[in-house]
């Protein structure tokens, strides 16, 4: 039994513009101690998924259907007070913006100690001791002295460390981290991710890492789910996803990242933007941006299937939601994934610190998967599509 099993989760938001299906029939599982990545652009439904797992969806949102089994128990069936015990104790969450996650009028130490006293029934002195120990664990220098500091006396990176300490304070089984390092500088990000990874190992905590940054996923995660417009479009292990992506959206994302040292002058792009969830395109929601879209894609919603067999997969590891794998397309997805040799050595012979393994050159697509004509975008005449056609010269 997996630690977390989410099945057929659907979340709607009832807004003035209409019903927004932020998460649509989503299923995934996270094993004990596993690091599970959720990647996608804004509006893909990543954060709503995380909040639903914690049952933190508020008006006008509603969890319409689905089960969230944590350790075999369905969180959806629990009473509010039972769920509150699970939060913090068994499942903890880190948000992107540390500043708003901390209470400005309590000292950072007190905020951590409070959680420890509440969930673990420690007395004051023991809670304080554990809080100082945690501050030290997350890499705050002089933890005993900084215990009595207020959040505003900490830098952004330090604040995020405090939030991590707070999340780990009750030794949770699952840590949901929603863009934990997006607001931070790369130097700080690297330190915090490194620390998070080591602590997760030490505390045997599973991590659900939500991010838009494929670099962070590659570094931290074991398995990944790619989301688009509220649905999972691909699930795979990190190696499979980066070296052998199966969904055109994943391929597009991979080729749109500027990579250092690839010598490319132009970036490949995905035309357009994530659709407005009030009006999700019919059929496959990616079809207006997909270079391989055919007429059938506008009608038929692709199921998540095993890309090799074309059969349904349930909660299994490898899946992609594209009609190419159900035999509905006339043509093949003709992108090629090329795993190139090692980047050339700098001429002066000094070793490049960013050495890659010879077999691990980033995925590259041979054909331009984005040679899409603007006409396709113009049929959607409401101006909500970014007119990316021009950028594919």
């Amino acid at each position, binding site marked *: 039994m997996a630690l977390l099993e989410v099945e057929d989760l659907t979340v709607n938001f009832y807004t003035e513009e209409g019903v927004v299906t932020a998460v649509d029939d989503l299923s995934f599982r996270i094993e004990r101690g596993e690091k599970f990545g959720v990647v996608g652009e804004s509006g893909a439904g990543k954060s709503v998924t995380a909040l639903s797992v914690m049952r933190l969806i508020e008006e006008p949102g509603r969890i319409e259907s689905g089960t969230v089994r944590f350790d075999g128990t369905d969180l959806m069936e629990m009473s509010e007070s039972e769920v509150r015990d699970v939060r913090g104790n068994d499942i903890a969450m880190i948000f992107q913006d540390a500043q708003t996650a901390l209470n400005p009028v309590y000292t950072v130490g007190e905020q951590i100690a409070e959680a420890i006293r509440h969930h673990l029934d420690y007395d004051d002195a023991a809670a304080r001791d554990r809080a100082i120990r945690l501050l030290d664990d997350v890499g705050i220098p002089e933890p005993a002295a900084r215990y009595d500091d207020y959040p505003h006396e900490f830098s952004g990176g330090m604040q995020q460390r405090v939030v991590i300490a707070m999340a780990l304070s009750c030794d949770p089984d699952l840590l949901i981290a929603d863009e934990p390092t997006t607001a931070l500088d790369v*130097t700080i990000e690297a330190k915090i991710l490194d620390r998070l990874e080591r602590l997760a190992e030490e505390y045997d905590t599973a991590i659900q890492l939500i991010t838009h940054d494929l670099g962070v996923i590659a570094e931290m995660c074991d398995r990944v789910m790619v989301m688009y417009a509220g649905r999972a479009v691909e699930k795979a292990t990190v190696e499979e996803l980066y070296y052998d992506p199966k969904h055109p959206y994943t391929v597009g994302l991979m080729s749109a990242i500027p990579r250092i040292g690839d010598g490319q002058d132009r970036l490949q792009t995905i035309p357009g933007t994530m659709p407005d969830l009030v009006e999700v395109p019919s059929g496959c929601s990616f079809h207006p941006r997909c270079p391989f879209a055919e007429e059938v894609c506008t009608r038929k919603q692709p199921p998540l299937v095993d890309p090799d067999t074309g059969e349904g997969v349930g909660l299994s590891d490898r899946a992609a939601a594209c009609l190419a794998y159900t035999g509905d397309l006339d043509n093949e997805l003709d992108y090629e994934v090329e795993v190139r040799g090692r980047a050339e050595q700098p001429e002066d012979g000094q070793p490049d610190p960013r050495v890659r393994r010879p077999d691990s050159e980033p995925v590259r697509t041979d054909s331009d998967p984005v040679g899409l004509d603007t006409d396709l975008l113009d049929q959607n005449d409401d101006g909500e599509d970014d007119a990316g056609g021009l950028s594919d010269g």
Partner: protein
Amino acid sequence: MAKTADSPILEIENLTKYYESGGGLVDTLLGRSQEVKALDGVDLELYPGETLGIVGESGCGKTTLARSLLRLIEPTAGTVRYEDEDLTAASDDRLRALRKDIQYIFQDPFASLNPRLTVGDIVGEPLDIHDIAEGEARAERVSDLLETVGLNQRHAHRYPHEFSGGQRQRIGIARALAVDPEVIVCDEPVSALDVSVQAQILNLLKELQAEFGLSYIVIAHDLSVVEHIADRVGVLYLGEFAEVGPTEDVFQPPYHPYAEALLSAIPEPDPGWEGDRIFLSGDVPSPLNPPSGCRFHTRCPKVIQPEWTDMAQSEWRSLMDLKQRLRKADSLEAVTAVREGLEDEDLRQLSRSALEARVRDEFGLPETVGDRKAEEVFGTALDHLHDGAFEAAWTALNDAFESPCERTDPELFDVGDDHRIACLLYDDAYPETPTRTS
């Protein structure tokens, strides 16, 4: 486009911006206010048709540089020459006219467009201000501009809220192009955008540069973005340039230690990547009171050892960290590692050897430091610490362990063609420093 032999279109010399910090009226009257040295004497040139990237962590002065060179904020000192005219000396009227040639694209596409104007008026406003076009001609120019940046002329009658982030950034670009500028300063043009849209905008900027012969100054915290778009790169640290050079050279050795650390920290979108991360100690120090000498010495993994020492660089870095910590310390908690289950312990009661173990633990020092003399100094400092004499402990360390990097503010040394690094490692006066070979 590569750098040409032409004379620079923009020449910035000794640009400096200090902000007054803290203190109200009383502090000012008593002369107690402090200065935040956001930008401290920066020189740079921008050549026609080139893209100059500026990178650095937050708080390094990137945005201050961008804004003060356009005089969106008044610089404290320095000159900005545009085609032989000094912007910093220009009258308000003249400055307004000059801004026809130098335009600005803002980071936040949601905050930089007036929500009550239609897109047509946003893009048309510079045309009105500079009396470039009216009536029919204005409408025509606006729809041309929208088409240039990949929007539809039908969009002219809509309001900003109807557009996505990427489209808004396109509107911002169209507005900047309206006056037919020579130079565009782009402050984090893509950091608010999703990956797929970011690529579209970066490509658009490149196309426009080729079409109109624009010169860009691009500010970004994301080094991979800068590597893609820039011909030359400047790495800022605490208001000063640490390294300046052609993009390929900056992204390859020889490095400034700061640039090297920045580069190594980028998460690589490749699960098989096995590079070594360089972790810097601490955060960016406050620009209120920047470190003496080389401003990076408080975090630099390669900080130079004194001539008399010979130990592993990591041990030296740890001793420097201990010294820095002691400068402000007034309790033993500050310099010792935390042990579990000892909440009420009084560190002053620890035996000297127990204290020593805890201090070594906190700073990752081995049982004996590789250099015998350095080990002796460390021992003396510990004796003082054990006696509770913090200042004496600091003095002992400070007298013995002084890096040249603390004393000397390095100038930008030439290390290659047009490639300069502000680091004493590249100064010929320190040829045999141990770090140079490591």
